C-alpha cells in the first residue's frame, strides 16, 4: 500500500506544480473571467447535502453543477470533468446510491441528498473492493476516467443485483446475470480513451464473484 501512496503523492505533486505555473501564466485573464461569472442582482443560493457521510452547506451561484460544487467548492477533486456534457462519464458519482453524471445536474437541485464520490468509496489505506480490483487487473492507464469508472462499476453491480434489465438482456422478465456482455453494455456511458475496457470488465467480474 505504501508504494501506492507514494506514487499518488508524486503524481499529485506534479499536477499541482503544473497547475500553479499555469495560474501564474494566465493570472490576469483568470481574474477577469472570475468577475465575468458574477452576475449582479442574483444572490447566491444556499444548499445543503451530505457528501461522503459529512453534511456540507454551501452558498452557490445557481449555475454551479454538482460536479463543480464537489471539485471547486468542496475540493473533492477525485471526481473528474471530462466532456462536461454527459457523454464521457468521468464525472459519475452516486446520489442516494444511484449513479448519475454530476456535470448534468445543478448543485441546488440536491438539497438533502446523500452523495458518494470516489473519495467516499475507499481511501488509499482502505480500498473499496472495486478500487482494489481495478489496481489488480490494471483497469486503467492514465487514470483520468477511473474515478467515474469505479463509481459506475459499483452502481452497475448493484443495478444487476436489483434486477434492472439492460439492452442486452435476452429476456426482459428474467433476472439479469453478471456476464461480460451485460457489464460492457451497462458501462457504455463511461469512455476510456486508453482503452482499458477488458481489464475493467475483469475487475468488475472479480468483485461480482464471477468470470468476465
Amino acid at each position, binding site marked *: 500500500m505504501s508504494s501506492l501512496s507514494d506514487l499518488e503523492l508524486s503524481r499529485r505533486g506534479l499536477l499541482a506544480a503544473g497547475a500553479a505555473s499555469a495560474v501564474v501564466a494566465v493570472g490576469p485573464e483568470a481574474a477577469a473571467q472570475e468577475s465575468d461569472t458574477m*452576475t449582479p442582482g*442574483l444572490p447566491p*443560493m444556499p444548499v445543503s447535502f451530505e457528501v461522503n457521510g459529512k453534511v456540507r452547506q454551501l452558498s452557490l*451561484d*445557481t*449555475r454551479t*453543477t454538482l460536479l463543480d460544487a464537489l471539485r471547486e467548492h468542496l475540493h473533492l477533486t477525485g471526481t473528474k470533468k471530462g466532456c*462536461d*456534457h*454527459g457523454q464521457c*462519464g468521468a464525472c*459519475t458519482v452516486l446520489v442516494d446510491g*444511484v*449513479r*448519475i*453524471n454530476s456535470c*448534468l*445536474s*445543478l448543485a*441546488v*437541485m440536491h*438539497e438533502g441528498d446523500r452523495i458518494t464520490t470516489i473519495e467516499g468509496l475507499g481511501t488509499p489505506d482502505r480500498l473499496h473492493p472495486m478500487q482494489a480490483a481495478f489496481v489488480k487487473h490494471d483497469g486503467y492507464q492514465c487514470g483520468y476516467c477511473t474515478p467515474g469508472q469505479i463509481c*459506475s462499476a459499483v*452502481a*452497475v453491480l448493484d*443495478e444487476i443485483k*436489483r*434486477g*434492472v*434489465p*439492460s*439492452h442486452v*438482456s435476452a429476456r*426482459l*422478465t428474467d433476472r439479469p446475470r453478471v456476464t461480460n456482455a451485460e457489464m*460492457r*453494455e*451497462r*458501462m*457504455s*456511458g*463511461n469512455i476510456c480513451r486508453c482503452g482499458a475496457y477488458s481489464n475493467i470488465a475483469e475487475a468488475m467480474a472479480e468483485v461480482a464473484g464471477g468470470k468476465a
Partner: protein
Amino acid sequence: MKAFTYERAASAQDAAAKASSLQGARFIAGGTNLLDLMKLEIETPTHLIDVNGLGFDKIEKTQDGGLRIGAFVRNTALAADMRVRKGYGVLSRALLAGASGQLRNKATTSGNLLQRTRCPYFYDTNQPCNKRRPGSGCAAIGGYSRQLAIVGASEACVATHPSDMAVAMRVLDAQVETVNAAGQTRAIPIAEFHRLPGDTPHIDTVLAPGELITAVTLPKPIGGVHLYEKVRDRASYAFALVSVAAVIQKDGSGRVAIGGVAHKPWRVEAAEAAMPQGAKAVAAQLLAGATPTEDNAFKVPLVERTLAAAMHEARAA
C-alpha cells in the same frame, strides 16, 4: 451558461402559472438535456422551476387496466417496472436502447418526450437554424444530412426527433396528461403531441406555454411480441439511424412505428394493414413521399430491412 433564478415548485398549478406568466421561465426535472443545451447557450432560460418535488413519480394501474406513468418517473425505473416489462415490453426495450445508465437514472418520462433534436446544425450556434433561431435559415438543408429526416420534413427544417421511448409510446397509443395555469387538465394522444416542422420548427409539441406534463398513460396491454430494433453507429450509447418499434401478433398483424426518420415518431396506421404481406409492402407505405438526400438515402432500404428483421424475430418468438 446565462444566469437564472431558481425555485422549487409548490404545486403543479403554481408551476404552470409561473411558467406561463414569466417570460424566460422553464421547468426542470432530470435536466440532462436542458442543462446540456444551457451550457451551449442554445437554451437560455432566466428562471428555472424545479418540478421534481411535485411527486409525479409513481406508476399506477388505471381503471381500464392500463398504466399511468408519473411525468417524473425516471427512465431506469420505467424500464425496470415489472408491469412494463411484462405488458409493454416494447417500451422497456426502447428505453434500454437509449442513452447511458447514468442518463437513464436521471432522465424523466416527460423530459424524454420533450428532448430537443440532436441535429448538428441545431447544436452549432455559428450556423443558421430555424429551430434554434426562428427565421435564421437551415444550414442542414444542403449540408451534411446523414442523420436527418427523410419523411415529413419541410423547407424550414429537416431535424429528427431523437427519442427511442417516444417511438414505443407511439406504437402503444399513449396519452400525455397535462395541467395548465388555470388548473385545467387535458389528455393529448401521442400521435398529436409532437408536431411536424412546417414553417415553425422551433415549436416541437402542441403544449401551450406553461402547460406541464403530469403523466403519460398507456391503454391496457395488447399482447403480441414486443420488439424494439435500433440501428446505430455503435452497439451502445448512440442515437438511432433508424429504429423500429413493433408489436406483432401471432397471425402476423400488428403495429409499427419508426424512429430516426422524421421530426416526430413516425407511424402510418394504414401501412399496418400490409403487415401480412411483409416488410417491403409496409415500408413502402410508411415512407410514401419520402425525400431523402444523397447522405441519408440509405435510410430508405434500412427501414425495410430493420422492419424485416423485427418481423422475422416475431415469427421466431
